[in-house]
Each structure stands twice: as structure tokens, then as C-alpha cells.
């Protein structure tokens, strides 16, 4: 199993979620994060002093998937989150050693 972590632009969350549903993902976990990368932050102004806000709001989505689903999910996210602009984000894939559903104790693929 894999854990796919996508860091995307916040306003793309709904589209990505819909795209995931269509490829059969039934669960995910969302975290508000801030990102720093090529996309430069903007300059805010406060009482005459300019200041750089170089951490930009991003949304992180964690999706546990079976090994077979992995490619499809990555593709779905890549497509749905793409705006063709710098800062669209990244997808990280990790090996997932084990998955447990707390309610039932179901293990691994059964817990998805």
C-alpha cells in the first residue's frame, strides 16, 4: 500500500476531491499547510512597512491507496490540481507498511 500526499492550491480542493471519487478513492484526510517554493509570495503592506509573505497557503491531502490504485490516483490528482502555473504543488508517494481501521480492526486493503 501507498500513502499519496498531495500539496495543492487551496481552491483546487473540491475539484481534486471529485476527481478522486471518480477513480474510486473513498477516503482522504486534509490539512491546511503553508508552502514555500518557486512560487514567490506577495508583498503585504502594513502601516507603511512592506513585508514579504513568502509562505503561501496550500492544502495537503493524504490518501491511502492500494498499490494498484496508485498510478491512477496520482494521475487524477495531477490533472485536477493543474492550473499550469508555478505553485500548483507536488505529490509525494510513501510506502505504507500497515493500515488499520480503528472501528473494526480491519487490516490493510480491508481497511481502505
Amino acid at each position, binding site marked *: 500500500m501507498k500513502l499519496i500526499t498531495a500539496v495543492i492550491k487551496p481552491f483546487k480542493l473540491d475539484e481534486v476531491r471529485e476527481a478522486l471519487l471518480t477513480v474510486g478513492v473513498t477516503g482522504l484526510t486534509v490539512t491546511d499547510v503553508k508552502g514555500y517554493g518557486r512560487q514567490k509570495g506577495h508583498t*503585504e*503592506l*502594513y*502601516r*507603511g*512597512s*512592506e*513585508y514579504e509573505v513568502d509562505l503561501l497557503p496550500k492544502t495537503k491531502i493524504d490518501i491511502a491507496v492500494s498499490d494498484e490504485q496508485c498510478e491512477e490516483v496520482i494521475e487524477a490528482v495531477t490533472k485536477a490540481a493543474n492550473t499550469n502555473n508555478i505553485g500548483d504543488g507536488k505529490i509525494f508517494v510513501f510506502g505504507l507498511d500497515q493500515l488499520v481501521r480503528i472501528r473494526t480492526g480491519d487490516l490493510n486493503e480491508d481497511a481502505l
Partner: protein
Amino acid sequence: MTELEFALNTFYLLMSGALVMWMAAGFTMLEAGLVRSKNASEIVTKNLGLFSIACVMYLTCGFFIMYPGDSAISSWIPGFSFSYLSLGMEGQDMSYGSYSEASDFFFQVVFVATAMSIVSGAVAERMKLLPFFAFAVILTGFIYPVQGYWKWGGGGLDALGYTDFAGSGVVHLCGAAAALAAVSILGARKGKYGSDGSAYAIPGSNIPIAALGALVLWLGWFGFNGGSQLAIHTAADAIAVGQVFLNTNMAAAGGVIGALFASRIFSGKADVTMAINGAIAGLVAITAAPDTPTGGLATLIGLIGGIIVYFSVITLDSKFKIDDPVGAISAHGTVGIWGIMATPLSGAGAFGTQAIGAIVIFGWVFITSYVVLKTLDSLVGIRASEEDEELGLDKAEIGVEAYPDFK
């Protein structure tokens, strides 16, 4: 004076005083909105505490010092007495003047609280609570009443012909001078200036309540200026009070427009905190003579006040490295001076005497405040420890966070 005239004046003074008391809420919201959330409970506590201390000190001795009547020692040295502690209904009758004695006290006491409120904003996020309260005791009990005596108590400044209808100098410059003394000793907040001297912005945590604060001040100022006519029972008085309301409102409007446009033109964005300071600046500017200008001139005086506050905030912050989180020194001090010096525009006061008034008030308050605060500093330290400052004064001193659910 008939009983009914006496009654109307008393009622008018009480309503005015209630509006000025309301300014305490204005300062509290303004300052709570312009500090970081980790210091918001603390500044609220300071405001509640300072208002209360001001009331008690002014009753204990401040009011008598400011209005000693025949007990004054000289035109620069007032008297001292605890007599107001025992002010009750028994002692009062119509011989006191054109309104009741208690209503007079009530109207005056809220002014001294205003002066002290100015200080709390400037020292926000780094001054310890107890030394702040100790300083409030001294400022409201002694420093403010003495210079108040010089002008409104019939002392030396009044004799010189210094004009200050409702206190651009006596209240606002006074508060700003004390604030400047405090900030000079405290220094800037941690992280405000980089090692290369560049100024970093430290955004306020809650702009809507800061704006609410400004609007509360705007409303309260009708009492502040309108009440300072001190009588409304004759047609002439009523007309004067009406003009004061009109001018106060126009000056505030002018101040917002001045500050917003300055900000839009010179910084590219319509900075709302500048609009807020602009409103206050317009109000401070008109306060030295809200009765004499026409509506158009009042607007102009306010508008210039709004432009001044914009440049003053930036200059103090970036050039002089005076870290004033809410812009109090600019809005009440720099613009207070503008208000004092602008009275001749409408034929009130003379340029020279006004300048003397501004210098005397500033000098007295700055020096005495500096001495008192330095003494406090060497005794107990007036600045919060680095650790407490980093943690936030809410946790360090109050034990209650302002917004514990949002983190």
C-alpha cells in the same frame, strides 16, 4: 439661572460624560485589534484597569489638583486635598454653577482616563502590567491634573491666552507625551527591527474590532467636544454645541479621507489601519477649537490631520525607530500639535501662545513621565522578560488567552 436650565445643563453634561466614558471601549477595541492575538487579553486588562485607576485617583486628588479654586498656591502650582472622596448629594446645590458638581466631576474624570488610554496603546505587547498600573496612578493623579490646572483650572497657560477648547493639548498631546517617554525607555518590540535597522511589520490581529474602536471613539468624541461647551441652556450655547458636533464629525470624515488617499497614493493600497488612524487624527485635530471653524474649514483641518498621521506613523516607525503598535503618538501627539497650531485658522488663539502651550504641556508631561518611568524601571523593571514577550503577555501575565479556540 432657573432650576430647569440647571437641570438641562446637568443632563447635557452627564450625557456628554457618558459618551466620553464610552471612549474607553473605543480605545480597548482599537488596541486589542491592533496587537497580536497573544497580547490581546493583556491590553484589555490594561484598559479596564487604567480606566478604573484614573477614576479613583481623580476622585482622590486629581480633580482637586486640577480645579483648586482659591486653594491654588500659584498660577503654576495647584492645591491638594482629599475632599472629593466625600462628595455626596448633601454638599451640592445650584450655587456650584450652571450644572451640578457631581456631573462636573463625572465629565472631567472621563477625560483623564482618555489621556491614559493613549499610553496603553503605544506601550502594547511589551510593558509589564503592574508598572503600567503604577504609572497610571501617577499620571492620572498628578501629572495630568497639574497641566490641566494650568489651562482649564485657570492657571498659567490660561492666563497666557493659550486656547484649547476640549484638549488637543491638555488631553491628547499629554497622553502622547507620556507615551513617547514610555516608548523611549521600553524600546521596540522584539522582532520589530532587523539587525540592519529595517522595520518589520507586525500586523494587528483583529481589524474589524479595531475599526469598531475607531467608530466608538468617533461617537464618544461628540461628548468630548460637544460637552466642552459646558452649557447648552441658551440659544447661543445650543448653537455652539451644534456647530461643535458638525465640525467634529466633518473633521473625522476629513481625516479618514486624508489618510486613505495618502495611503492609496503613496503606498498603493488603501490601508485600513491608516483610515482608522485618520479618523482619530481628524478628531484630535479639531479638538483644540471645534467651535470656531466653518464646516468646510473643519473638514480641511481634519483632512490635513489625516495626511499628517499617515506620514507621522511611517516616519516614527521607519526613521526614528519609535515602535508604537497602534500609532498613538502620531495620532494624538503629532496631530495634537497640528490641532493646537491650527486654532488661529479660525481666529481662535494666537500662533505664538499656542506654540508655548504645546511646548509647556509636552515638556512637563514628557519629563515627569520619563522620570517616573525610569524610576519604576530601576525599581522593578517595566519591560516584560524576553521569554514572556515571546510567549505573549496573555499567558505570562493574565493567564487567559484572548482567542484560545483559534490556533
